[in-house]
């Protein structure tokens, strides 16, 4: 079984507005799909539907493996040093400290390990959230605007992390309003669905 995520004829209604309907997509191991489109096209809603946080109004969502999610909230305790905030999720995901070390290395966050999360900049917080995703060792990555506030160097590290993840047999569903420069990327224009 190489399929990790399948959405079949999914519709999503927010308030009284139909965001999309009849949306079918599948993600296999090693694949990545870029959800593009203007603000309000339903990119974030589709990510939340895929994550199981939002019920699809119609259709079915199937996940074949664990899921790691980035959305606008970093979900890291603001009062803790970065490393301890990440360690909490490592315990929840039952991964060891080395996995967190490697993930921090990948996003170049080691120098900030002892800095409280509340002191981090927007871009640094996004990198920290990315560390949480990498360290979770979940095969399905759902990334909602992961590069917001990141500088060029951090974006390059994000692209590299996505490539490593795909090479290891993971799949990525990416919602972003701009192309990140990820090679071999399938596209789905949410703006064209509405």
């Amino acid at each position, binding site marked *: 079984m190489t399929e990790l995520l399948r959405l079949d004829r999914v519709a999503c209604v927010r308030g009284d507005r139909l965001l999309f309907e009849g949306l079918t997509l599948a993600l296999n191991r090693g694949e990545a799909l870029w959800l593009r489109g203007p603000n309000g096209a339903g990119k974030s809603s589709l990510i939340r539907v895929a994550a*199981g946080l939002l019920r699809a109004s119609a259709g079915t969502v199937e996940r074949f493996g664990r899921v790691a999610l980035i959305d606008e909230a970093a*979900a890291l305790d603001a009062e803790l040093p970065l490393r301890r905030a990440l360690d909490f999720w490592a315990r929840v995901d039952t991964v060891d400290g080395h996995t967190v070390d490697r993930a921090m290395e990948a996003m170049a966050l080691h120098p900030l390990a002892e800095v409280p999360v509340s002191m981090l900049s927007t871009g640094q917080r996004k990198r920290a959230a990315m560390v949480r995703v990498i360290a979770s060792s979940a095969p399905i990555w759902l990334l909602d605007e992961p590069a917001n506030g990141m500088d060029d160097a951090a974006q390059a590290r994000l692209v590299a992390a996505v490539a490593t993840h795909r090479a290891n047999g993971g799949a990525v569903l990416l919602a972003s309003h701009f192309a990140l420069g990820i090679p071999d990327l399938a596209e789905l224009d949410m703006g064209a669905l509405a």
Partner: protein
Amino acid sequence: MLIALFWRDLRRAWGSGALWLPVLFFLLVATAFPFAVGPDAPLLQRAGGGMVWVAALLAALLPIDRLVRPDRDAGVLDQLAVRGVADEVIAAVKILAHAIGFGLPLLIALFPASALLAQDAGRVETLATGIAIAIPALASLAVLSASLTAGLKGGNAIGGLLVLPLAVPLLIFGAGMLDPSGRGAIKLLAAVSLLLTVIGPFAAGAALRGLRE
């Protein structure tokens, strides 16, 4: 994983200093009451036990705002849901952490408060037993109302209004234990506390699910 969740809740309760506010409030009420009714020891002793119960109930309502809302705003609840943790389990862990994080200091504060209200040793024992029985139910109600109001602006005041009617039986039977003729009150208090404690995780879990829609 549940242990990690539990310690995180307890650390946040004790670490932020927010825990001492309800306990200070509790002691403050116990201090203010004798000033208000005068230093008449027999009167204080008769009315003081009920006052302790009212103060404990109100103190339990104070931290409602920080029980669920910060976790929702920070995305922690979403992250747990993505990992397949049942909302009922999250609620149960929060109730347990709140019962210990808030209940233990409250029990300790009960002793100076009882002294201020001229309660003798026998009545202090009854009060401590009653409040210890009621703490799981108070924690359960606090987490329930915190979950219900986490999505609302100014939810704290509404949270208090939600809990108060449900907590009235605790108050009646808890304070009733102090009445020499109220022998059955402790059993009724235990029954009410058990019922509220059991309902709490399921009701709060449903409320947490509702927060995501």
